[in-house]
């Protein structure tokens, strides 16, 4: 447990010194979301109707930008070798990476999401489910993205490959995330969607770190 805290602390220290990296991801999220009204026209009803899907899709695309540099710097400067040779198992290293990614990318996106929803005129019943679905969905995306980042480590054009690999895997999160918000707006309970998102998170929590560790071991050979 202390090892996990120390590993997350190291990641956060590094992320804090390079805060621009997280800021770029959030800025991309905001900009991409702002582009839609220019493309589809400023009709308020349609924008409000689109809001849940647009927020979720753009948040996922923004997150893709951040995964490429998740392991690459450590791989290139030899830190990953030392982490692999440290007392903590690699799965714990991967879990720490995912947790730090969630804190430095998932959380800022979660905070920016209601602002985007406001721009789109999301009905007021949708805000709580929006925050709730993102709170449950973002850690899942971090965990799946960590596996993708580990798998594409050392590959040429790894960033593109990573998106091709990760985006199909996060479709369930997108479906239940957006549907949860829409259900709440239409007057249905969002609870079943939230529970499904919770289930996905638990599954990713169990499989993700081990899959990442196996992929990292391959990359280090």
């Amino acid at each position, binding site marked *: 447990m202390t090892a996990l805290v120390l590993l997350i602390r*190291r990641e956060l220290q590094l992320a804090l010194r390079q805060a621009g990296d997280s800021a770029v991801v959030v800025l991309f999220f905001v900009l991409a979301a702002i582009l839609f009204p220019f493309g589809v026209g400023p009709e308020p009803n349609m924008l409000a109707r689109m809001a849940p899907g647009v927020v979720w899709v753009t948040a996922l695309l923004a997150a893709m930008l951040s995964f490429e540099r998740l392991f690459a710097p450590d791989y290139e400067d030899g830190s990953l070798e*030392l982490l692999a*040779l440290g*007392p903590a198992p690699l799965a714990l290293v991967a879990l720490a990476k995912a947790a730090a990614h969630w804190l430095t990318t998932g959380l800022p996106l979660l905070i920016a999401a209601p602002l985007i929803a406001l721009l789109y005129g999301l009905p007021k019943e949708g805000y709580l489910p929006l925050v709730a679905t993102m709170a449950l969905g973002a850690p899942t995306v971090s965990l799946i993205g960590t596996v993708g980042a580990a798998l594409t480590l050392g590959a040429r054009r790894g960033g593109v490959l990573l998106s091709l690999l990760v985006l199909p895997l996060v479709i369930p999160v997108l479906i239940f995330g957006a549907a949860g918000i829409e259900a709440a707006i239409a007057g249905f309970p969002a609870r079943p969607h939230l529970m499904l998102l919770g289930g996905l998170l638990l599954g990713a929590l169990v499989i993700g770190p081990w899959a990442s560790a196996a992929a990292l071991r391959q990359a280090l050979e």
Partner: protein
Amino acid sequence: MRFFGQGLSCIRGERIVFAGLGFALSPGEAAVLAGRNGSGKTSLLRLMAALTPAASGTLSWDDGPVADNPERHRRRLHYVGHLDAVKPVLSVRENLLAWVRLRGGGGDAADAGLARFGLSGLAGIPGRYLSAGQRRRLSLARLAATPAELWLLDEPTIALDRDSVAALMAALVSHRAGGGMAVIATNVALGLEDAATIDMTGYAAPAG
């Protein structure tokens, strides 16, 4: 014998780098890996660190094979490879402290490591301003900061000035006096007359 390997072979990309290699180290002993470029010195060190699995053969401590308890093995070794693992945005001390903490040490241990390799005066400098030799010294400071029984050093003297080589040799002497072991891959004569030499050319696979 404390740490030993038998019948080790290594295959890198369809090519047999070495085969049938054996070694044995007792407390206080050191071994120097000698051989041409590409003869498998780094491969052997990575194999000893259990970073890469051996194609065949076993690696053991006197209380059990490495494969049975890889975590214990990792806790017992320090590995200094070609890459220095220095983060440009962290200060010299923060860089070292991150690694020391993971091995259960604290600020005092990190400061002792810095002092040993003459880095105390640079403690607050960000890693990006270090020269190649200073980065190497920072990487070597891990050895002095937290104890580990086995040191695996890959060309540790590259980019080092004469004083730093002397500091490394002094650290090596006190490490061995305390019962520690070391395996050093090098192409320079380090003056380790009492160390065993593993000549990699003797284990190269026959051509064709």
